[in-house]
């Protein structure tokens, strides 16, 4: 039976056009739903756009957060097949520059084996042959299949494919309210920031993919979701000083990764929590810390000029006050019917851009289950359109 005949009856409104919203829109459209994506700014103008551009191999989580690590490596392998245009598949190194790092290596490798991340040990001279700008103190390294992607173009690829399947994408349309009738979200009140018009969009179901702003949306339905806006500072240096992603071979900490993207090297990142994620004042000491910690792995980064300095909030699942680095980086789909007794409303929170497709799959599975539909997810095998098609469809 062709279930999409049934899904066509339902109009799903997706709030947010970052990587999560874009991937959800693609998955929904592919499974036959009528989809409208609402984004208050430009595509990827929030968390996704300003992210680190790291296509995770999972290495960063393989010791302490193996659930996330497994998600990462699985999605990494899928994304490189369905979206080659927005990726640079250069690989990554976890580099040890002191004895403590070397001591961590064994647990790192065990973590890789436990989570299925392919890896290769490199001795110091081999690592420095491949990456001449690595510190002279380098003691050894482990290669993993990290990559680099273009965050905005990744979103546009998802959205182009969604548009191809009939979705409507409306940037600069801000959600101002949710209409709830009989404990069910039935419509979305919006304000078009271009025309200034206010209108109401009927929705059979609303998916809240607003990232760190998810709480603002859930407030409108009188429910709540445990998302903490956790910014991090990143410094993009002028010039590309590594070909592979360079990570510190140790427990994740501040300033322990350098991502080469195009002609820049992006050092990241730090972590603190904020109440309002709209405009983030960057703490000077965090910026300084990026130079200090980044140059421990690659001393040249202390000598070159920064090109861009930016910060953006990650949407971590948790509560303010918890130690942010201890919070798992996995994602969670909240069905507000189960949680709060509000029907027709789902929030997808947490996660990473690398796992956006999986987040979408999980979310749309929940959507289908709520509507009593059984439509299999096909995003794993569906080649995405070029990001350019976003503008031409």
């Amino acid at each position, binding site marked *: 039976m062709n279930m999409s005949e049934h899904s066509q009856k339902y109009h799903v409104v997706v709030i947010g056009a970052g990587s999560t919203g874009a991937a959800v829109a693609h998955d929904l459209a592919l499974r036959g739903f*009528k989809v409208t994506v609402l984004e208050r700014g430009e595509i990827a103008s929030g968390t996704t756009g300003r992210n680190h551009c790291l296509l995770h191999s999972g290495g960063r989580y393989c010791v302490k957060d193996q659930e996330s690590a497994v998600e990462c490596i699985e999605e990494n392998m899928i994304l490189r097949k369905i979206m080659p245009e927005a990726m640079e598949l250069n690989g990554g190194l976890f580099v040890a520059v002191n004895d403590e790092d070397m001591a961590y290596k064994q647990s790192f490798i065990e973590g890789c084996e436990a989570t299925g991340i392919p890896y290769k040990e490199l001795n110091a001279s081999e690592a420095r042959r491949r990456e001449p700008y690595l510190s002279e103190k380098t003691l050894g390294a482990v290669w993993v299949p990290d990559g680099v992607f273009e965050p905005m173009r990744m979103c546009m690829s998802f959205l182009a494919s969604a548009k191809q399947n009939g979705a409507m*994408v*409306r*940037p*600069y349309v801000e959600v101002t309210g949710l209409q709830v009738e009989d404990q069910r979200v039935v*419509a979305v009140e919006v304000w078009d920031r271009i025309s200034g018009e206010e*209108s109401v969009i*009927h929705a059979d179901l609303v998916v809240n993919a607003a990232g760190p702003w998810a709480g603002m949306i859930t407030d409108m339905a009188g429910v709540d979701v445990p998302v903490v806006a956790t910014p991090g500072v990143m410094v993009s240096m002028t010039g590309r000083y590594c070909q592979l992603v360079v990570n510190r071979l140790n427990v994740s900490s501040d300033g322990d990764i350098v991502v080469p993207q195009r002609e820049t090297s992006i050092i990241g990142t730090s972590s603190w929590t904020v109440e309002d994620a709209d405009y983030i004042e960057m703490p000077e000491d965090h910026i300084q810390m990026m130079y200090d910690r980044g140059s421990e792995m690659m001393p040249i980064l202390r000598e070159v000029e920064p090109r861009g300095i930016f910060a953006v909030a990650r949407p971590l699942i948790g509560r303010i006050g918890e130690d942010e680095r201890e919070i798992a980086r996995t994602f969670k789909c909240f069905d507000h019917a189960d949680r709060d007794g509000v029907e027709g409303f789902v929030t997808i929170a947490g996660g990473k851009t690398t796992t956006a497709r999986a987040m979408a799959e999980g979310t749309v599975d929940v959507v289908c289950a709520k509507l009593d539909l059984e439509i299999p997810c096909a995003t794993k095998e569906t080649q995405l359109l070029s990001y350019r098609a976003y503008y*031409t469809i």
Partner: protein
Amino acid sequence: MAVSNAPEGSRAYPGQQPREPQKRVLRWFQPFNRSLGTWSFTLNRVTGIGLVVYLYLHLGVLSLLLVGEESWDTFLAVAKSPPVLVMDVVLLAGLLIHGFNGLRVALVGSGFMVKQQRQLFIGMMVLALILLVIGGTAVFLK
């Protein structure tokens, strides 16, 4: 309530009719706070248009030659007056700038000295200036 269908307009911004950009012919003549290349473009355009106007004025004036000796030589007396000679120097400047800048465009445009186009432009203008000084003085000396 029905889903609002995708309104016509911009594909990336449904429902919006973008304002078409104005044609800015004035941009041709505003090289200020632009790079050297735009100066060369503007100079070429200004001198080019000036020379076309001059060409037709000149052809018109030459009809005096058809009329006969007297009318030509009367005109010549005017043409040799200092203000008109200054105009001659302006004409010479236009010819030299347009000619040598044009040579640069021809060279660069056919793939020669592409990397040195900036230096080429400066060199050509220096050459034009030298010839202008020589030619301009000669106009008055003769």
